């Protein structure tokens, strides 16, 4: 192939990449622009990219006019708790599956993957009934339990992959030196898989932070709702305050963006570790 052909090929490739990046960035920029506008300017027939009187009022109103401070607190508490619990169980389960031969090991792994096929809407009704019986409807505890239940399978699946990448010779060497199973796990194997634990935790956190349906059904009072439910119920209103909503959404993106900027490489390798092997 001649050099010219390669160069024009790259030109097309760049063009397509820039175009698709625009498709991603334009809505995000529009969101930012909307959040900076006043309500009057919002409902004007002319579309302006740069607001006439940009103001941060909407960002303040999110916390003064709406109970978003409570929603954020709930989201942080519920998702942090469920992520910690899911990771704790997933590391033990992952280590167990990667180190011991036991009956049903293969079917356990298949089952974990199969849970991805379950329609969450189908689990919703039994969960609702279960929490109703236990008197846990409209509590953060119910949300934590529900979130752990769907974070756990995927986390375990990912952790098995990470533990498999640590050679079992290390376990044997530790055993020869007189270290017990538990000590080997905490002092030798777990530190080596810390990057994997971090990637899995991020994955679990993001999936919990973004969850909507369960939070919608399992909570009803304002002081128990999470951020997605809070934003979601404002979308359904007759008169939508778009600038306030966009400001609230941008707040919701903050933790995710921070995580992503610092840990981009790790997230991507974590996402693909389980899927490709």
């Amino acid at each position, binding site marked *: 192939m001649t050099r010219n052909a390669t160069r024009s090929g790259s030109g097309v490739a760049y063009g397509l990449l820039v175009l698709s990046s625009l498709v991603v960035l334009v809505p995000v920029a529009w969101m930012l622009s909307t959040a900076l506008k006043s309500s009057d300017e919002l409902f004007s027939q002319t579309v302006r990219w740069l607001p006439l009187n940009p103001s941060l009022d909407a960002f303040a109103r999110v916390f003064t006019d709406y109970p978003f401070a409570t929603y954020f607190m709930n989201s942080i508490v519920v998702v942090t708790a469920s992520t910690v619990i899911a990771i704790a169980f997933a590391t033990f389960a992952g280590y167990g599956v990667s180190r011991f031969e036991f009956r049903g090991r293969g079917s356990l792994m298949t089952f974990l993957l199969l849970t991805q096929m379950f329609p969450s809407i189908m689990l919703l009704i039994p969960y609702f009934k279960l929490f109703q019986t236990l008197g846990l409807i409209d509590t953060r505890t119910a949300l934590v339990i529900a979130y752990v239940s769907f974070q756990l399978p995927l986390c375990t699946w990912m952790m098995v992959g990470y533990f498999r990448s640590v050679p079992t010779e290390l376990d044997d060497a530790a055993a020869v030196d007189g270290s017990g199973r538990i000590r080997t796990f905490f002092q030798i194997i777990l530190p080596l898989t810390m990057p994997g634990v971090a990637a899995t935790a991020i994955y679990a956190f993001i999936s919990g932070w*973004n969850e909507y349906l369960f939070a919608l059904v399992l909570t009803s009072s304002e002081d128990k709702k999470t951020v997605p439910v809070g934003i979601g119920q404002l979308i359904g209103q007759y008169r939508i305050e778009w600038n306030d909503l966009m400001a609230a959404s941008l707040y919701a993106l903050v933790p995710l963006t921070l995580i992503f900027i610092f840990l981009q490489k790790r997230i991507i390798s974590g996402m693909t570790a389980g899927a490709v092997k």
Partner: protein
Amino acid sequence: MYGIGLSLFDTNLVNRWDFVGLDNYGRLARDSGFLDSIVITFAFAFMVVAGNLVVGTGLALLLNRGLRFTTFFRAVLILPWLFPEVVVALIWKWMYNPVYGLFNHDLQAMGVIDEPVAWLDDPNLALVAVALAAIWKGYPLVMVLVLAGLQTVPKELYEAASLDRAGGFGKFRHVTLPGIRPVLLAVIVLETAWWFKHFTIVWLLTNGGPAGATNVVSIDIYERAFKNFQWGDAAASAVVVLIICLALSAIYQKVLHRDDS
């Protein structure tokens, strides 16, 4: 399990538990609303999965060419995956807004349409409009997975193909495609199962309307259970969805097994 049990009862979950056997299923089979929603769901899932595959694979191929700024483009292109579905729905609802939305404004400026289009209120357009938003949210995952798959294709194969005077398309067809086939198959089936049971984006954009045009099966079940309190019917519909998803996963396992041998 409880869901399956529940699907056999006519119940309000508290004190009325009438065992009705398979009556709930029988009623569903005759319920044109439910059948319509299954058809709509297949159409929706097909559009989204096909869109995700084309866009995701295409972008993965572009990112895999080792161009400069690849890291930057990858970071930008992966952003929608990070966004909560609620936020995605919100952004698109605002852009689709017939009077103040960006879509109508730009399309009118470019002369594509003459007057504002009510994207989400037109029964003929709503499903496509919703699917577009879902593709925007869904393609990054496909992109990342295919990108990972592309790393596993040996470089020597491309060199060999060059020696055989294969063009760009020939290389794609005979080297790239077979190389990423397992990943593509896995992605197709997982994606189908995910989008088949999708709820949030559709619910927030249209509530299943207009006139049931976007009434996907998850919304149908949600309304049966939490609006009309027909728990038995809802559970029966959920079981039907589960069976469809399991059938899809069975196909998946079978195809993968054939791949291994």
